């Protein structure tokens, strides 16, 4: 008995449709979230993440109807986020069917939000998303979809976030996101070896070897990717078979 490493497809949406972009820019349509969620559920995804990437930018209300329709399709956990700034907004997302809530910019601006969410829903439902950009001597935390710098160091912020009540870290490399050049394994290992909570690596995945590397060198507990799954460049089942063949424990659905 041991815990499997998780493969998590991510649906970045503009509210209603799945979109994709490089370095958080240049968005284009990538499909219907409900259809994609149903496919991933059947293919053996371990969880699904749905983000409203437009919400933080222009303050649009989160897309509760999309969450509701996606949750309908899933017999696996659903994480939702994008623009959640208050306990009230998080309640609405949970009521719509999300098992976990992810927060990013709002937690940087008001860290107590993590404690409030954790007290209400439990730490296992609170995912702190951190967008990290490499700089001399470490990684800087970025907010507002990666566009705005902060003075926070990613390791310190991850640790503080877990202390405040986050039960998981969703760690995106701003440098790698959308490049398909592999996860930032050094960043992932630095955070994963610092915090006591599980770390989901994100940003840069293309081929199965990238996942193998982030689970071994990167010490990731889970790995997240978007476009390679949406475009059917990579099937989740084939990816898991590859990983299992190389000694990584993964769940292959019956």
């Amino acid at each position, binding site marked *: 008995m041991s815990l499997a490493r998780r493969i998590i497809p991510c649906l970045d949406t503009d509210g209603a449709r799945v979109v994709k972009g490089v370095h958080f820019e240049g968005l284009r349509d990538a499909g219907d979230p409900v259809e994609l969620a149903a496919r991933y559920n059947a293919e053996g995804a371990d969880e699904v993440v749905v983000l409203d990437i437009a919400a933080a930018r222009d303050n649009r209300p989160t897309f509760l109807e999309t969450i509701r329709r996606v*949750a309908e399709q899933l017999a696996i956990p659903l994480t939702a986020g994008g623009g959640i700034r208050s306990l009230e907004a998080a309640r609405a997302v949970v009521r719509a*069917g999300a*098992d976990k809530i992810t927060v990013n910019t709002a937690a940087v601006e008001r860290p107590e939000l993590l404690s409030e969410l954790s007290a209400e829903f439990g730490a296992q439902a609170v995912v702190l998303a951190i967008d990290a950009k490499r700089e001399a001597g470490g990684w800087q935390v970025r907010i507002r979809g990666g566009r705005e710098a902060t003075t926070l160091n990613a390791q310190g912020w991850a640790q503080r976030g877990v202390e405040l009540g986050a*039960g998981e870290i969703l760690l995106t490399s701003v440098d790698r996101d959308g490049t398909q050049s592999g996860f930032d394994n050094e960043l992932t290992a630095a955070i994963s070896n610092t915090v006591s909570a599980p770390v989901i690596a994100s940003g840069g995945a293309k081929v199965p070897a990238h996942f193998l590397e982030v689970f071994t060198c990167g010490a990731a507990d*889970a790995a997240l990717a978007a476009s390679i799954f949406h475009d059917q460049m990579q099937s989740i089942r084939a990816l898991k078979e590859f990983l299992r063949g190389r000694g990584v424990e993964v769940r292959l659905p019956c």
Partner: protein
Amino acid sequence: MNVTLIDYGACNVPSVERALRRIGAQVETTNLPEKIGAARCLVLPGVGHCAALIAALDAHSLRQPLIEAIGRGATFLGICLGLQALYESSDEAPNLAGLGLLPGRVTRLPENVKLPHMGWNTLKTVRATRLLESVPPDAYFYFAHSFAAPAAGEESAAVSEHGREFVAVLEKENICAVQFHPEKSGATGAQVLRNFLRAAA
């Protein structure tokens, strides 16, 4: 099959309801003591903080009707915190008494592993249980918790491990419970729920 789903405000009530409906159950979601007291098949979901569950049961005056319904022989399924609440006490809520239907104390998983225990893990069967009929021995289930009940109790039917062994499936007469989330465990989770409905029929 009619199932009474206890809704004390836990976030996973809608997911559990959806999962039960998918396999053909008629689900009544309620927090009324008289309905719970009269139920023949009860499900207590739960996720989050144990103190919140126990406090909510007491705030809605559900503790006694629940204990009495189980005492009368209603088939019961506890999920996650719904399993932990069956014991006498929990280190997560040291000032509150559990339902006390099973002896023992729920404790935190060790610090040498990442917490919460979050994700898909397998089971080791300790003895036959109706809940795991037709479930492959290497099946994975979704867990999301930091506290767990002891593995050694006579009610324990299957254990899992994260830092230490803990009870993952228990069955004692009409009391069933699982530490994982069957409503989030794909096809194998649905099989466990079907097995529970069959046991309750």
